[in-house]
């Protein structure tokens, strides 16, 4: 029996709604204070940067978008005396010439071939780069064996199956930029690994040869290699024997990238503890098996950022082939802007702006990928 007594005590059944933290500790204002104005130096830097952005961003946006000309048939569309206002980028020119920037002089009716090449390459890249992709071993074979053969047939031609020959002289634009960097990347990774292993080998002659190749290639600027290949080489060869004008810089670029890649990979090899080697040997693994199953997987994983870094550098270095008369993206921009049909003051900069945007997004994509891989691999080291 209970006596119902009036409730005297107060028991809280639900907790009081929490007060928001003081505005100086959390929230956007606090974030701003914490990150942008935390001290006199930071405040000064913030103000300076804000002023800098204010100074540089509106003109860039204005140039690229607001006062840009998007349509037109020739240079007069991008001239101030016809538009009656200040003209920013002349995108009409870029749109008119976009096929030339993409394929160079590649015959118009055969352009499905470069398109298919881009697709084949894209599949290979995604397969290789997507770490959770199925059958990645197969992907590697596809990328390093199938893609080069298919690409060669598609671009240069294979008359036996009905693909007519297209001389490399008419390749150009982004196609050439991608071919040169892809060849550099596909060759430099395996060759670089071999050179790195050779340099750490205990066999004196192998080591000496690898050291000479690496140091000699690294000791010469790329532009020198390209000039040697394109200007000097024809003089050394017997008359009538010519090496394709595009293959010459390709070999030069591949050599160059391999030497740098070898040093990156060597860094990874040196970071593997000796115990791993000894453990592998104590299991009775032969040298190739030890390298293939134990050492290289670990070493390459460590140096992925370095490898991607080399790729980014290589990708941008390919613009140097324009100096020796290969029509890469930069060279096509330079020859297109000379066309008297499109002579307007802003045409020069529009072409270069297009190239800059292309290179920025490619390099940014690579670096973004490298960072995500880095984060993923660092998971084991996080607590």
């Amino acid at each position, binding site marked *: 029996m209970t006596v119902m007594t009036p409730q005297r005590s107060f028991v809280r059944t639900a907790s009081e709604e929490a007060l928001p933290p003081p505005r100086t500790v959390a929230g956007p204002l606090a974030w701003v204070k914490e990150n942008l104005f935390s001290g006199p130096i930071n405040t000064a830097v913030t103000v300076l940067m804000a002023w800098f952005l204010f100074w540089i961003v509106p003109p860039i946006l204005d140039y690229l978008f607001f006062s840009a000309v998007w349509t037109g048939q020739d*240079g007069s569309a991008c*001239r*101030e*005396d016809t538009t009656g206002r200040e003209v920013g980028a002349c995108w009409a020119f870029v749109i*008119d010439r976009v*096929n*030339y920037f993409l*394929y*160079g*002089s590649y015959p*118009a009716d055969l352009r499905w071939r470069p398109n298919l090449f881009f697709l084949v390459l894209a599949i290979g890249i995604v397969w290789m780069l997507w770490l959770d992709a199925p059958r990645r071993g197969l992907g590697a074979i596809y990328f*390093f*064996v199938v893609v*080069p*053969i298919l690409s*060669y047939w598609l671009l*240069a031609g294979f008359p036996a199956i009905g693909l007519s020959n297209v*001389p*490399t*002289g*008419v390749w150009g634009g982004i196609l050439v930029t991608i071919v040169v960097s892809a060849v550099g990347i*596909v*060759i430099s990774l*395996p*060759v670089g*690994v*071999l050179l790195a292993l050779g340099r750490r080998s205990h066999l004196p002659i192998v080591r000496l040869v690898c050291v000479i190749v690496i140091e000699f290639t690294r000791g010469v600027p790329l532009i020198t290699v390209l000039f040697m290949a394109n*200007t000097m080489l*024809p*003089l050394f*060869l*017997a*008359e*009538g*024997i*010519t*090496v*394709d*004008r*595009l*293959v010459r810089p*390709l070999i030069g670029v591949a050599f160059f990238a391999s030497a740098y890649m070898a040093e990156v990979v060597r860094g990874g090899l040196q970071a593997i503890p000796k115990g791993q080697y000894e453990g592998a040997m104590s299991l009775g693994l032969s040298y190739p098996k030890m390298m293939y199953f134990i050492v290289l997987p670990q070493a390459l994983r460590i140096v992925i950022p370095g490898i991607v870094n080399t790729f980014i550098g290589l990708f941008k270095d390919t613009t140097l082939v324009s*100096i*020796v*008369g290969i*029509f890469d993206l930069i*060279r*096509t921009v*330079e*020859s*297109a802007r*000379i*066309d*008297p*049909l499109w*002579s*307007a*003051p802003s*045409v*020069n900069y529009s072409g270069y702006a297009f190239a800059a945007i292309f290179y920025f997004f490619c390099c940014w994509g690579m670096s973004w990928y490298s960072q995500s891989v880095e984060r993923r691999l660092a998971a084991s080291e996080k607590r």
Partner: protein
Amino acid sequence: MKKALTTIAFGLAAGVAFTGVAAAQETLQQIRDRGQLICGSNTGLSGFGVPDAQGNWTGFDVEYCRALAVAIFDDPNAVSFIPLSAKDRFTALQAGEVDVLFRNSTSTMSRDTSLGLDFPAINYYDGQGFMVNASLGVTSALELDGASVCVQQGTTTELNLADFFRRNNMDYEPVTFAQSVEAVEAYLSGRCDAFTTDASGLASERLRAPTPGDHVILPEIISKEPLGPVVRHGDNNWADIVRWLHYAMLEAEEYGVTSANAQELRDTSEAPGIRRLLGVEGNFGEMIGLDNNWSFNVISKIGNYGEVFDRNIGEGSPVGLSRGLNALYTDGGLQYGHPIR
């Protein structure tokens, strides 16, 4: 990995083309065997060799390459272009990578002799000139005493400029740039009083100005730049073909034979010069190892010299150059077609 390497090696080896070593006398035969002419062309020069929106090369020098292809194969597309930079052009020709250069090369004694080249014809007489801002009120290069001049460094242009001012006892301030584009930009932004380069280049650079009417090209030409095709020394028959191609195009203009009326004149004309030019009389084609219709094909498919000039660089084109020195000798110019007889 080994497999991959082997594949790559094969791919590269396939790109290495071994063309048969042939004696210098057989350029024409090599071209016939190959099925196309290989023409060393400019990497981009306004009006002379520029790619269009589809990447097809067009321009004055390019049409000469096509005319040569027509003379040999009766097909303006039987030619492939290898764009060559100024540094590469002569080694590429010497090494046999190209059959002929049509790329604004100045004929000079040292090139003709010590480089082992031949300049069979001059298809464009150029010379260095000046462009100044119209507001200066300058009408002659001789009034440029004390002017600052934007110029590309390391070129004969720079040397010619110095020679001109020294010869006329005038002072000037050269403002040099590594790239021609930079020199133009500097001039347009008011950094210098005058800009100098070859006269054919001045006209197209003027179009790049915000208001082209603000700039005048001065009448003085201060250097001689005879530009023409280049072939390897030693294959005289091949040089003959290139030379007579140019003369045939000049003769056609002189006789009033154009791409439009070539067929009609061939059927009806009684003038002996035209009959010989169009292959009705004589066997002039056979003399240089070609078909007797060679010049008729060139004129009907490409046109005479005047047509090619007007279409690409003349007053009917955006470049808008006047004929000047390149007028026929009958109009006071230097283009003098030798008689085909």
